[in-house]
C-alpha cells in the first residue's frame, strides 16, 4: 500500500525540529494524521523499517521530548477534535484527541460549546445534562496553556493548582493508544491491574503484552521522572507520564470537577526568600481552600520590572515597587464569601507573622484581575525564554537550562539553601519561580555564552544528584525527555534504568518510539 500520509521533511518544516526547550533535532519525514486509524496506518508502515518515531503535540515541552531524533515526526496537532462525552455518578468525562489544546478545551468547557456533528447519541444526550450542570473544569493547569492534552498526559504535567488537585494523572480516566507495530491498546481506569509487578495487557488485535514492572520506589514528592510503577498498579498509570516511549496516545478521556464558587488569588510580597518560605510553611498548615502556593524570587521580579520598562507588550504588568523583594501567590478555592474572607484574614496574619506587610499585597477576585496575575506569572518564563533566544542567536547550541526538581517536605529548606549557595558561588544570572507549596521551584540559569552555559548545566547536574540523595525527583512536572535523561540514571541508578529499558522493549521491541527520551539511546540498544 502506498503511504500518502508520510511525506519527506522540507525546509519549511524546520519548526518541527524544535520545541520550547530550544533544542534542535533532525528528521527525514513527517506526518500529520487526523484519526486513530491514520496513526495505525502510519505505524504499520514505519514498523516495517523500524524507523524511529518522535511524537509531537504543540511542542511546548521544556525537556525536548518532542524534538526528533532522526527518522519520522508524528505530529498530532491536527488530531484536535473533542470526540464525545459521558457521565457517570454525576461526574462528566470528555474524550479528546491528543492534539486538543488545553486553552481551547478550557474555553469549550466554560462556554459549553463543542463541534458535536460527529458525536454519538450518548454524547449528544450527555451534552444536554452537561449544559444544565453547574460550571465544570479540567483542573491541570500548566503555565503554558497552549500545551496539548496528549503532551500533558505524556509528561504527567502539573501546574499551580496541582497543589490541591494533583497532577494530570488523577484526571485521566481512559486512554487509547497505538503501539510501535500499529496495534491498538485501550485502557480504562480500574479495569486492568498488575499482579504484584507483573502486568498483562491485551491489544485490540488479540495479542498480549507481558510487562515486568521495575522494582524501584518512586520518590515521596511530586514526580514526573521515569515510568510510574508500583505493585498492583492500575495499568493506565504506566502509560501516563511515559514520555512518548511506550505508545502513541490517540484518544484520551479526561474527568471534570466542579468549578469552585469563588476563586481568589492573593500575592504577598516579602523582603527575602526566608520570609517567603516561612509564610509558605504557615499557609501549608491550612487544611481547606488553598488550591495553589507559588513563588517568584527577587531575580524573577527584577526581570519583570525590566520587561515592563523596555517592552510595550509587557506594559500591562502591574507596577512592582522596589521594596517588593520576592512574592508568594496563594490561590483560594472557596464555596462562599464567608470562607474566603476568613481565609483572607488568616493569610493576612501569616503574612505579618512571616515578616511581610499585608498592605503590600494584591488580591484578585475577578477574571480580569486574575488575567493580570496570570499574565504576570506567564511573563516570567516567557521573558526567560526571550533571553535564552537572544543568547542562542550568537551561540546556537545554547538551550534552556532550568531545573524541575522537587523534594519531600523535610528537605526543602536544605534545597533552597543549596540553590542560593551554589548560584552565588558560580555568579550566574538566574531566576527562580514555581510551586513552592509542593517543594518544587524552577531555577533557571540565563547563560550569555558557552562558558556560562556549560557551567549552568554542571550546576544543574550537581543539584540533580543532591536531590536524588534527598529522595526527591529530577523532574517533577516537565517530564524527563532528552534534556534530563542523564539525570534519571543519577536518580534511579543503572540497574533500575535497565529495568525501564526492558519494560520499554516489551512494548516497542524495535526501539522506535521517542528515541532519546528517558534513556540515552545506547541504553535502549544495550538493554
Amino acid at each position, binding site marked *: 500500500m502506498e503511504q500518502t500520509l508520510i511525506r519527506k521533511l522540507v525546509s519549511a518544516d524546520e519548526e518541527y525540529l524544535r520545541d520550547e526547550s530550544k533544542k534542535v533535532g533532525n528528521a527525514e519525514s513527517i506526518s500529520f494524521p487526523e484519526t486513530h486509524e491514520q496513526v495505525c496506518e502510519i505505524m504499520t508502515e514505519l514498523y516495517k523499517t523500524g524507523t524511529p518515531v518522535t511524537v509531537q503535540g504543540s511542542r511546548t515541552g521544556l525537556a525536548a521530548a518532542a524534538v526528533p531524533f532522526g527518522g519520522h515526526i508524528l505530529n498530532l496537532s491536527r488530531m484536535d477534535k473533542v470526540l464525545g462525552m459521558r457521565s457517570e455518578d454525576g461526574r462528566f468525562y470528555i474524550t479528546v484527541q491528543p492534539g486538543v489544546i488545553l486553552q481551547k478545551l478550557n474555553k469549550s468547557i466554560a462556554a459549553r460549546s463543542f463541534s458535536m456533528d460527529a458525536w454519538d447519541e450518548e454524547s449528544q444526550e450527555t451534552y444536554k445534562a452537561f449544559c444544565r450542570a453547574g460550571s465544570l473544569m479540567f483542573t491541570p493547569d500548566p503555565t503554558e496553556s497552549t500545551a496539548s492534552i496528549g503532551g500533558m498526559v505524556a509528561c504527567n504535567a502539573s501546574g499551580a493548582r496541582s497543589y490541591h488537585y494533583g497532577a494530570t494523572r488523577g484526571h485521566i480516566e481512559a486512554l487509547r493508544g497505538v503501539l510501535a507495530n500499529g496495534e491498538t491498546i485501550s485502557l480504562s481506569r480500574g479495569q486492568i491491574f498488575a499482579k504484584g509487578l507483573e502486568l498483562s495487557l491485551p491489544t485490540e488485535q488479540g495479542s498480549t503484552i507481558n510487562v515486568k514492572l521495575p522494582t524501584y520506589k518512586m520518590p515521596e514528592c511530586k514526580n514526573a521522572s521515569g515510568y510510574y510503577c508500583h505493585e498492583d498498579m492500575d495499568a493506565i498509570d504506566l502509560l501516563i507520564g511515559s514520555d512518548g516511549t511506550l505508545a502513541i496516545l490517540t484518544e484520551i478521556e479526561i474527568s471534570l470537577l466542579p468549578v469552585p464558587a*469563588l476563586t481568589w488569588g492573593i500575592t504577598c510580597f516579602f523582603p527575602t526568600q526566608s520570609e517567603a518560605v516561612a509564610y509558605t510553611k504557615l499557609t501549608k498548615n491550612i487544611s481547606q481552600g488553598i488550591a495553589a502556593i507559588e513563588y517568584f524570587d527577587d531575580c524573577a521580579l527584577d526581570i519583570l520590572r525590566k520587561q515592563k520598562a523596555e517592552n510595550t507588550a509587557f506594559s500591562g504588568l502591574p507596577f512592582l515597587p522596589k521594596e517588593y523583594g520576592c512574592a508568594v501567590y496563594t490561590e483560594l478555592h472557596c464555596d462562599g464569601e464567608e470562607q474566603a474572607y476568613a481565609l483572607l484574614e488568616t493569610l493576612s496574619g501569616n503574612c505579618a507573622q512571616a515578616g511581610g506587610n*499585608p498592605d503590600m499585597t494584591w*488580591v484578585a477576585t475577578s477574571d480580569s484581575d486574575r488575567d493580570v496575575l496570570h499574565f504576570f506569572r506567564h511573563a516570567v518564563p516567557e521573558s526567560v525564554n526571550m533571553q535564552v533566544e537572544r543568547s542562542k542567536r550568537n551561540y546556537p547550541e545554547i538551550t534552556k537550562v532550568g531545573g524541575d526538581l522537587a523534594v519531600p517536605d523535610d528537605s526543602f529548606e536544605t534545597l533552597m539553601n543549596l540553590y542560593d549557595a551554589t548560584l552565588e558561588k558560580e555568579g550566574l544570572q538566574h531566576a527562580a519561580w514555581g510551586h513552592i507549596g509542593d517543594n518544587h521551584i524552577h531555577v533557571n540559569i540565563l547563560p550569555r555564552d558557552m562558558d556560562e552555559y556549560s557551567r549552568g548545566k554542571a550546576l544543574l547536574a550537581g543539584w540533580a544528584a543532591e536531590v536524588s540523595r534527598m529522595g526527591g525527583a529530577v523532574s517533577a512536572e516537565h517530564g524527563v525527555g532528552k534534556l534530563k535523561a542523564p539525570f534519571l540514571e543519577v536518580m534511579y541508578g543503572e540497574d533500575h534504568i535497565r529495568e525501564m529499558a526492558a519494560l520499554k522493549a516489551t512494548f516497542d521491541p524495535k526501539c522506535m518510539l521517542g528515541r532519546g527520551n528517558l534513556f540515552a539511546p545506547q541504553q535502549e540498544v544495550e538493554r
Partner: protein
Amino acid sequence: MKIFVCMKQVPAAATASIDPLTKTIVRTANNAVTNPFDLYALQTALDIRKQTGGSLTAITMGIPAAERVLRDAVSRGADGGVLLSDRAFAGADTLATSYALSLGIEKMGGSDLIVCGKMAVDGDTAQIGPELAQHLGIPHVSDVCEILEAAEDHLVVRRVWDEVEQELYLPLPALITVVKGQNLPQLATIPGMLRGRDVEIPLFTAEALNADTERCGLKGSPTQVVRTFTPPVRGQAKTIEGSETQQAEELAKVIKEVLYGAD
C-alpha cells in the same frame, strides 16, 4: 473635590456565554463582575483624588446583588458606594438608567467630577456617560486616555480619536468617560478587601430619589428589543482561485472592498 465613579455589574467575560439550549445570555450571581472599563474609570478617579484630595464615591444602579461592585470599588480604594435599586428601575435602557443615576448623584448633593468607563462590555453602547452629563446639564469629554492636569476647578485631559489627538480644558463640574488607557487598574490589598466587606452601602429606591416612575426602568425606556438572535458563525473561508494573476486581481478587489466598502 467630590468625585463619583459610575459602575456596572456585568457578566464575567470568560464565562459570559449564550446558553446553548435556550439561546439566552447566562447571568448568574457567581459570574457577575465589575465592568472592566469601570476599573479604569475608578483608577483614574483614584489618581485624581491623590492630587486634589476629596471624596470618591462609587455609584451603580442594579439589582441588590450589584452592591458587590460597590464593595469591590471600596476594596480598591473608593471611600464609599451608593446603590440605586428598585423594581421600578428594572429593564432600563440608557435613557432611563442615566436619568436614575442623575437623581442619585443629585441626592448625594451633586458632584464636582463624574468618571465613567468608556462603555459596559455587555451593552457596548458608550451612552450612559454623555446622557448623564446632559441630564445634569454639565459638559463632558468622552474617551479620555490621560489626565494631564487635575485641579479643584478644572481638568486638562488628552484623548485620541482615530488619527487625531486632542488636549482639552474642562471646567468643573463635568463628566469624563475613560478608555482603557495608560493607567493600570491596581488590585485590591488584603486590608482593602476587609474594608470593602465592612463598609455600609446606602440604598436608594425610586421613591427615595423622588423619581418620576414614568421615566424609570422599562416604562421609561424608549427603545424596545424586538428580537435577539445569534449572528451567523464565521463560515468557511472563501477560496480565491484561478491563475496567479487572477488570484492577485481578485485579492486586490477583496482588499478594496474591505477597506473602502463594497461598490
